[in-house]
């Protein structure tokens, strides 16, 4: 009798837990779907080909976000060029090379960097790059975003490399491979898709950043002309500027720009997934 009672309790707890996790998942995914649908519904009305390629115009004259799309892509490219290699190198150091005190200090600093509000990063870059160079620039924006990416990429790279079985490293070492070749030829490729996911997370994260760009890239009404030393437009700053404006037309355009931003992130995600698909 005692045992049966215990069984009934166990089953009840199990059922409750299963239901609870299902409900939580449903709430989380459902909320996300609501947000996505809402953005699509609000944004789709102002979407047109012109909107995607034109530059902004005064209220009442339409205009578009072409310069902001290009600017965002440039900023993401810049920040990836700075941030991904440094972040991956940090991850390799933490997982493969660093031992003892120095490694734990680096890890602690990286973890602290992750927690720094992005606006602080913006102000910091403003102080060390924008002020000395005396103007807002695409370069400063890229560096600010890269600074946000490094800790994310570094820690995910470290975790992914640590999942690579130790026996693979020993196998390569036993064939007479020097350590750098073990790392670059065996360990990193084995973790490539995981590292790419980390990079994706970082890109997705910074592509939504607004605050650091207000202090660095600043925003612009013109198309990027190849000069990294000039202010540059970005989707997020454009959305911000339009959203706080008093005009209904600009509000609608902000919604459409948000939809474009989300699609852009989705697109980058799919491309990277395809490129780093597991081949072996």
């Amino acid at each position, binding site marked *: 009798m005692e045992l049966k009672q215990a069984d009934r309790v166990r089953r009840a707890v199990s059922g409750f837990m299963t239901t609870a996790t299902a409900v939580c998942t449903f709430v989380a995914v459902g909320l996300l779907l609501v947000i996505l649908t809402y953005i699509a519904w609000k944004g789709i009305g102002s979407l047109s080909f012109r909107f995607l390629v034109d530059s902004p115009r005064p209220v009442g004259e339409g205009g578009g976000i072409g310069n902001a799309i290009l600017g965002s892509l440039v900023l993401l490219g810049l920040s990836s060029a700075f941030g991904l290699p440094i972040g991956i190198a940090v991850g390799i150091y933490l997982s493969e090379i660093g*031992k003892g005190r120095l490694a734990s200090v680096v890890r602690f600093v990286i973890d602290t960097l992750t927690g720094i509000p992005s606006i602080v990063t913006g102000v910091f870059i403003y102080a060390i790059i924008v002020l000395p160079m005396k103007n807002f620039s695409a370069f400063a924006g890229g560096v600010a975003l890269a600074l946000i990416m490094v800790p994310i990429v570094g820690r995910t790279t470290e975790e992914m490399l640590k999942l690579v*079985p130790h*026996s*693979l*490293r*020993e*196998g*390569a*070492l*036993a*064939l*007479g*491979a*020097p350590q750098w*070749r073990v790392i670059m*030829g*065996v360990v990193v*490729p*084995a973790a490539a898709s995981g590292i790419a996911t980390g990079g994706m997370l970082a890109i997705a994260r910074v592509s939504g950043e607004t605050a650091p760009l207000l202090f660095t890239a600043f925003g612009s009404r013109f198309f990027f002309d190849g000069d990294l030393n000039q202010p540059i437009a970005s989707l997020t700053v454009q959305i911000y500027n339009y959203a706080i404006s008093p005009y209904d037309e600009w509000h609608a355009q902000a919604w459409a720009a948000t939809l474009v931003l989300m699609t852009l992130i989705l697109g980058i995600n799919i491309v990277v997934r395809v490129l780093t698909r597991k*081949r*072996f």
Partner: protein
Amino acid sequence: MRVQTAPPRIQVPERRPEDGAAPKTTQPKVSVRDLDFYYGKNQALHNISIEIPERIVMAFIGPSGCGKSTFLRTLNRMNDVIPATRVAGQVLIDNSDIYAPGTDVVELRRRVGMVFQKSNPFPKSIFDNVAYGLRINRITNSSSELAGRVEQALKDAALWSEVKDRLKSSALSLSGGQQQRLCIARALAIRPEVLLMDEPASALDPIATSKIEELIFDLKKQYTIVIVTHNMQQAARVSDTTAFFLLGKLIEVNTTEKMFTAPNEKLTEDYITGRFG
């Protein structure tokens, strides 16, 4: 650098002294003197001295934790990658101490190959796995020679006929026994002088095991092989000499035949007859 003219067949040993020359006993390939080994403060090997002649198969037997794998890994300094380990004593390969300061560990591991207990193919194609050692050691620059060496290594490891039509597919798609033979082929491709095998068949079924054992029998014409095994029948089948380890000490080294019929030490006899371990 050894320069290769034509890939030698397995039946024609590469380094065989001229027929009629002095027998193998002249010079041991590996000679270990008073070797102690420590994991931190814990001494795992006590005062090991042993000589391994060229082109024979030597088996290390003993109960779990007796230090036989640890000892095997001191022969190509694989223990260097484990933190807080320490070695005292000498390991001479061709009369030079591999623990002497200034020894190039990378070069050492090219000469002393290793096959691990758990097969560890790289997540690359079958071809790239075998070619890995050739590429990193820049043994050849021509792709046709590379292909030839890969084919020869796969043949030496008795795997060629099973994989020749799918060299480009993933090594991880092979069965467990095939993966282990792939790892052997990978080690053979760079033609080491000594081949260390750490329980190479412990995770394999009897058919795959017997394939590996036949392979070891063939390979000893060319290589000096040291094999750690838990399986005493296996030691009896494949080896010429056997060393028995117990609690980090080397108890006895003898020809395999004597070891399993009339060992010198009481402890060996007790272990072999199953009285402990």
